[in-house]
């Protein structure tokens, strides 16, 4: 499992994978928002956490389709499947690799990008905290979606259609916790719910992803 993890990490960082791309996408979305809603700093500060959450979510989505598709194209996926590692563990390793190359950089990049949106001082900590708690869930849910659409030729658009509704609870609790924290309200409940969603998805969805992979490789 660690070997697979290392391999995926190396592949995504070296071979022009999604590593820099999703970060750049994140940056561009955040830059575009002020053009669309106007440069008033109060408005930007108010919608900032939500914008950063949506942008992070879309950037995560963008890098999902290459997760299994590349392995499927070059025939590595059946080889991985025939290894002694169960497919559930493969799915989990893929999700972890995806988080390390997408979710973690996005979380770290969110704070500097928050400057562009005139976030208030208290908002940064909450934003980074909620993103750190929420992006693993995004990665695991996305891995399930990617496993679902692995055999399809034009899976990309379908993948977004399937995964985005599944992202709704994570987004609601994540953005809500970030917003409440930024405004100095009590954010314990949404934060705990967010952590619960992440923990639950991490525990259960690899099994669903493994089952789906098995069907797709049949």
């Amino acid at each position, binding site marked *: 499992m660690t070997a697979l993890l290392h391999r995926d990490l190396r592949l995504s960082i070296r071979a022009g994978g999604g590593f820099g791309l999703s970060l750049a996408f994140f940056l561009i979305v955040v830059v575009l928002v002020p053009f669309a809603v106007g440069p008033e700093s109060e408005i930007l500060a108010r919608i900032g956490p939500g914008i950063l959450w949506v942008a992070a979510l879309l950037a995560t989505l963008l890098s999902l389709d290459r997760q299994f598709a590349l392995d499927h194209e070059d025939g590595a996926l059946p080889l991985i499947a025939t290894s002694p590692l169960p497919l559930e563990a493969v799915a989990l390793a893929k999700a972890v690799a995806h988080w390390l190359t997408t979710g973690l950089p996005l979380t770290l990049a969110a704070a500097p990008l928050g400057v562009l949106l005139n976030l208030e001082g208290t908002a940064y900590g909450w934003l980074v905290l909620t993103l750190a708690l929420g992006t693993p869930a995004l990665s695991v849910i996305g891995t399930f979606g990617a496993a679902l659409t692995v055999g399809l030729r034009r899976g990309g658009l379908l993948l977004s259609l399937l995964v985005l*509704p599944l992202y709704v609870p994570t987004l*609601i609790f994540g953005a809500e916790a970030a917003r409440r924290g930024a405004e100095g309200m009590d954010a314990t409940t949404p934060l705990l719910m967010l952590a619960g969603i992440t923990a639950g998805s991490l525990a259960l969805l690899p099994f669903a992803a493994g089952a789906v992979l098995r069907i797709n490789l049949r």
Partner: protein
Amino acid sequence: MSIWDYANPKKFMDTTTPAIPWIFGGAALCLVLGLVWGFFLTPEADKFGSSVKIIYVHVPSAMMAINAWVMMLVTSLVWLIRRHHVSALAAKAAAPVGLTMTLIALWTGAVWGQPMWGTWWAWDPRLTSFLILGLFYLGYIALWEAIADPDQAADLTSVLCLVGSVFAILSRYAVNFWNQGLHQGATLSLDAEENISDVYWLPLLVCIVGFILLFLALVLMRTGTEIRVRRLRALERQAQRAVA
């Protein structure tokens, strides 16, 4: 004689095909009766005026939108556990009907909301979760359409339905938490002391029965169509093999 006998496509078709016109007839009867009764023979509510009468379409369609998803969940489970093809095809057949019910509920809700709340749409928990339910239906239908191999498609959509159900319920409560709503509470519930007054309740009940029958008839018909499509494909393959 158990319910699993109907997993045999032939037995299923033999039973349902003659029954479908009767069910359609029952649905039409109930809907005409319920709607005429509800629209023309009930007093106007003092607060709502005549716009309350859209309830006779709104509530049953909203109920069926949720029930259709539950039915898909059950049939998906049956397919995953017992591998009965009719079950998978019934789930496939129910999805577009469920989506239509969702759209009807949203549309009638908007039409009702305009005079009552002064807005077509509000980000109210119930409205929002119905919108999300519609998105789930869309994704489910799109996945069915995208996969060529029918058994694989049935497997994948079944898993999607299971996972989607969990997330749909999560979304429902997340949305509740996220925004307090304009929408009134449940009109009908089994444990309430008193529901709406009988004058409105009886025609509504007739309409609900009508919608259930309509849903049943549509799903049975569409399942039958799916089975026939399956048979046709099998026949075509046989013919090709005979030529080759």
